[in-house]
C-alpha cells in the first residue's frame, strides 16, 4: 500500500454522517412475514432486472406442447385434437415441474456470494429467505402455467371442466411445484453450487416426467416401469389435472393422492431447508 498523503486528504469530498447516526434504541426485529415478503420482493426485482432468466420457463412448455401434439398426437391419440385432451394437462404438470429447480439454483447462487452472509447476520426468521424465494417461484410457475393453458386453447384444446376446473388444476400444479421448491432449496443449501443444482434438477426431474402417464399410457411399458409410473406422484398429478380440466369425474382419488404428495414433500423438505439455512459454518 502506498501511504496516502495529507494533500490528498484535503481534496476528498467527504461523506457527512451528521445527524444520521442516531443512538440505537432498543433493537427492533422484522417480523417473519415482513421479512419473507421482503425476500419475495427481492426475487421479483431480480426477475425484473434480468427478464432473460424466464427464457426456459417460457420455452419448455411451448416446445413440449407443440412438439408432442403434432409429432406424436396422431399416432398416440388418433388425432392431435383428441390427444390434446390427455396431453395438455400433462404439459401443464411438466412445464411447471421442469422449472422448479431454478429457484434452488438462484438460492445456491446467493450462497456463493457475500450477500448470503449479510442476510444471515441479521436477526430475521431463518425460513424467510427460502419462503421469499418461493414467492418468486410462484410467479414463475404461474407464468409457465398460463403459457400452457393459453397455447392449448389456441391450438384447439377445449376444457370440459370450464374455467373453474382450469383454475383448480393450475392451483394444484403450482402447489406441487412449490413443494418441489422446498426440495430444491434444501439441495441448494446442501451442495452450495448453482450448476450442481441445475444438473441434479435436470437429472431428477426429466426422467420421472417421461416415466409417467403424461405423454403415453403405460400399457406398452415393461412391468417394472409400469410399477414406477403407478407410484410416480407426477402420474397422479397429471391424472388429477386431467380430471379437473376435462371434468371427467373420478378426480377425488388422483387429487387426494396429489395433495398427500404435496404435503409429504413439503413436510420433509421445508424444515430441512430452514435447518440448513441456519446451519453455522
Amino acid at each position, binding site marked *: 500500500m502506498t501511504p*496516502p498523503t495529507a494533500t490528498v486528504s484535503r481534496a*476528498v469530498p467527504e461523506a457527512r454522517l451528521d445527524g444520521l*447516526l442516531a443512538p440505537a434504541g432498543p433493537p427492533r426485529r422484522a417480523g417473519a412475514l415482513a421479512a419473507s415478503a421482503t425476500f419475495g420482493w427481492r426475487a421479483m426485482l431480480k426477475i425484473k432486472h434480468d427478464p432473460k432468466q424466464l427464457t426456459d420457463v417460457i420455452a419448455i412448455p411451448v416446445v413440449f406442447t407443440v412438439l408432442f401434439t403434432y409429432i406424436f398426437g396422431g399416432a398416440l391419440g388418433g388425432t392431435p385434437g383428441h390427444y390434446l385432451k390427455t396431453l395438455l394437462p400433462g404439459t401443464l404438470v411438466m412445464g411447471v415441474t421442469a422449472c422448479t429447480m431454478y429457484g434452488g439454483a438462484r438460492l445456491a447462487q446467493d450462497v456463493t456470494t*457475500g450477500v448470503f452472509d*449479510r442476510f444471515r*447476520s441479521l*436477526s430475521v426468521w431463518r425460513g424467510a429467505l427460502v419462503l421469499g424465494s418461493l414467492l418468486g417461484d410462484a410467479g414463475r410457475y404461474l407464468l409457465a402455467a398460463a403459457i400452457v393453458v393459453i397455447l392449448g386453447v389456441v391450438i384447439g384444446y377445449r376444457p370440459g371442466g370450464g374455467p373453474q376446473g382450469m383454475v383448480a388444476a393450475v392451483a394444484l400444479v403450482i402447489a406441487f411445484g412449490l413443494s418441489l421448491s422446498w426440495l430444491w432449496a434444501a439441495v441448494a443449501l446442501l451442495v452450495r453450487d448453482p450448476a450442481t443444482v441445475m444438473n441434479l434438477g435436470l437429472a431428477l426431474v426429466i426422467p420421472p416426467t417421461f416415466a409417467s402417464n403424461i405423454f403415453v399410457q403405460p400399457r406398452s411399458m415393461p412391468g417394472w416401469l409400469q410399477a414406477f409410473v403407478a407410484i410416480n406422484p407426477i402420474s397422479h398429478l397429471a391424472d388429477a389435472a386431467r380430471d379437473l380440466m376435462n371434468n371427467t369425474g373420478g378426480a377425488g382419488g388422483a387429487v387426494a393422492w396429489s395433495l398427500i404428495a404435496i404435503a409429504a414433500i413439503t413436510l420433509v423438505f421445508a424444515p430441512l431447508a430452514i435447518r440448513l439455512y441456519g446451519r453455522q459454518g
Partner: protein
Amino acid sequence: MKSGNGRAGASLAIEAHGLVKAYGKDRALDGIDLRVGRGQVFGFLGPNGAGKTTTIRVLATLARPDGGTARVLGFDVVSGAAEIRARVAVTGQFASLDDDLTGYENLVVFGRLRGLSRAASKQRADELLAAFGLTGAAGRPVRAYSGGMRRRLDIGASLIVTPDLLFLDEPTTGMDPRSQIQVWDLVRQIAAAGTTVLLTTQYLEEADQLAGQIAVIDHGRIVAEGTSAQLKAQVGAGTLHIRLLDGQQRSKARAVLAGTLEGAVRMDGDPLALSVLLASPTGATDVGRLIGHAMTRLSDARVAVAEVSLGQPSLHEAFLAFTGNPPGPAATDHEDTYS
C-alpha cells in the same frame, strides 16, 4: 457514548477466551483471547489467511466456535446469537450486497429486514444515499459500482439502524488512496457517534490511523497487542534507504551509519545502496533529527549521497519484529474463500 443496549454490566463490547475454530485439520483460530472496550475502534491486523475473517465470523454468529467462549455486547455467541444479531452489523469482503439490485433497492431491502416500515426504509435509503454521495447512482445496479462506491454503500447498509458494534472486514483492501481516506473518515465518524468498531486490515498504516488498540494475528494466534505507539516501539521506525554516487564508498558509508544510527545496516543487492532498519528513537528525539545527523556525518566523511528515503515499517517488518518470522503462507485455505 451509549450504554445499556446490551446486557446490564457488560462493560466490554467483545470478550473472548481461547477461541478455537478448526476446518478439518486446519486450526483457523488457535486460541484467541480478546477484550474490546465499548466505544473503541479496535484494529485486527494480520496477513491473508491469518484468521481475521474467521474471528469476525465467529463473533458475528456466522460460524460456531469449536472451543473457547466469546461474549459480544454481553451475550454469548452460541446461546445469545439472536440478541447479538439484532445489535451488530457486519460489512466486508464476505458480507456484501446484492449485485443484481440497485443501490436504492439494496438499502430498502436491508431496511425492511432491520424491522423498519416500508416508508421508513425508503426514507432511510434516500438519506443514506445522499450522505454517502450516491444519490446519482441510486438507480444503477450495484454490479456497475466502482470499488469505492460499493464499499460506501456497503457501510451505509450497516448504518440503516445504528449498530452498537460494527464489524468491518478489510474495508479498504484494493482501494485507491482517495477512496481509502473517505472510508477512514467514515469510520472515525461512526466511532465518534459511539459505535464500537472492530476493523480487520492487512495494513499497519490503516490500523495506526484508525484504531486505538491493535491486536496482531498470525496463524490463528494473537502475536502482539497494544496501542499503535506500543507496537511501533517494537517494530521500529522504518527502513532508511540510501543510494550513493560511488559504490566504492559503500563500506565507508556503512561504518559511518553503524556509528550514528541504532539499527542493523544492510548492504543490498544494488551495489550503490544501503539500508538501515531503524530502531524507534527514545525520548524526545525524532527520526528526522537522527537521519539529519547521519547525513551530516556522511557528508563530513566525504561520502556522496545520491538518494535518501525513509520507508514506513511494512507489515512484513512488523511480523519480523513480533514473531521473528515473516508472515507465513495462508494458515488456512478456507479463509481464502471469504477474502
